[in-house]
């Protein structure tokens, strides 16, 4: 029997198609990179789409609350993948005293991630950002498009989103606007892990169990909590995910700070 293309092949093909559509449609692209697992899959797919190189800058929004191990990984991966890395810190907000010590996680996330992104986008005038969000992460992300427009104020008009019939996407933006291009929307958390395993994609070691705990999702150190887990390799992580009833982002405080916290963050431009 002829082997079928696997589900992972389908997802990979779809993502590469989206990458190439975006590269064809937009003049000035950047790709936010958090160094998390989805982000690293994104880099891997970009290299597959463009014959081994990432042909646009990769952006790390550094909140100054990063885990040191993630920063070490950043420096290693920058060399390993030969990335054109731009690091952005919202120094203005930090100087105003915005921080997790004194402010709530929704405010800090908005200032140090979204506003930082606004600042760096105004500087480089990117017309498209390639993001690694997935529909199964969060109910508001579930309503996203592959090509998702943002206005000049960074707002997401979720009440009036473009249809995406027959591979036709919103590929134009007016001055100051940009489009979020989201190649991983259809991937699930387990798909990401199966693909990391199949392709042997480098990821930070914090995802694997140490002393009975591991990080399932990675963000700012003061508001990101590890889960109880003995999963120390990818097979064990996949087995754990197939059995668990806990949501992926349960350890991310900003999502759960108040009702509709993610909606409020994302409507104003958070990824």
């Amino acid at each position, binding site marked *: 029997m*002829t082997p079928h293309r696997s*589900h992972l092949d*389908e997802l990979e093909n779809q993502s590469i198609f989206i990458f190439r559509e975006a590269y064809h449609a937009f003049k000035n692209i950047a790709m936010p990179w958090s160094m998390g697992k989805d982000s690293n899959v994104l880099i891997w797919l970009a290299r597959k789409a463009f014959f081994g190189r990432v042909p646009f800058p990769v952006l790390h929004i550094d909140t100054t609350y990063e885990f040191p191990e993630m920063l070490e990984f950043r420096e290693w991966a920058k060399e390993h993948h030969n990335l054109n890395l731009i690091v952005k810190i919202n120094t203005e907000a930090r100087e105003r005293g915005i921080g997790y010590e004194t402010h709530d996680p929704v405010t800090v996330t908005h200032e140090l991630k979204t506003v930082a992104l606004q600042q760096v986008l105004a500087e480089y005038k990117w017309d498209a950002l390639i993001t690694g969000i997935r529909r199964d992460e969060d*109910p508001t992300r579930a309503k996203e498009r592959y090509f998702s427009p943002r206005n000049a104020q960074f707002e997401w008009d979720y*009440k009036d989103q473009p249809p995406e019939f027959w591979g036709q996407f919103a590929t134009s933006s007016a001055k100051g606007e940009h489009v979020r291009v989201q190649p991983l929307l259809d991937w699930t958390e387990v798909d990401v892990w199966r693909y990391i395993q199949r392709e042997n994609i480098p990821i930070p070691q914090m995802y694997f169990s140490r002393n009975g705990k591991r990080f399932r999702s990675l963000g700012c150190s003061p508001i990101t909590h590890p889960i109880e887990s003995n999963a120390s390799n990818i097979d064990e992580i996949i087995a754990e995910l197939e059995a668990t009833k806990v949501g992926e982002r*349960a350890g991310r405080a900003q999502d759960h700070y108040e*009702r*509709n916290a993610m*909606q409020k963050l994302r409507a104003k431009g958070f990824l």
Partner: protein
Amino acid sequence: MQKANVQRSTSNAQRPTPTEQRDIGIPLRIVFVGHVDHGKSTLIGRILHDTDSLPEGKIDMVKKACAAEGMEFEFAFVLDALLEEQKQSTRPVTRSS
């Protein structure tokens, strides 16, 4: 984005049987079509619940959202996660049996 599937279905020789489909991990895709307010989200929410497919704490979040809107339990809120969608649900269509 389903071009590959459409192509494959034209050739019986290459189409996986349901068993093969399960074995190679291809998800089953289901579409719900219906008029606004006729219960698409409600039905999907109920199926996700009854098949034990919801993450821990999801039902509690839905309960809180329903309480904030002064409503009885509404399975549609599993999917209708935006504030506007929840406020639009003026007529409860679910029975929380």
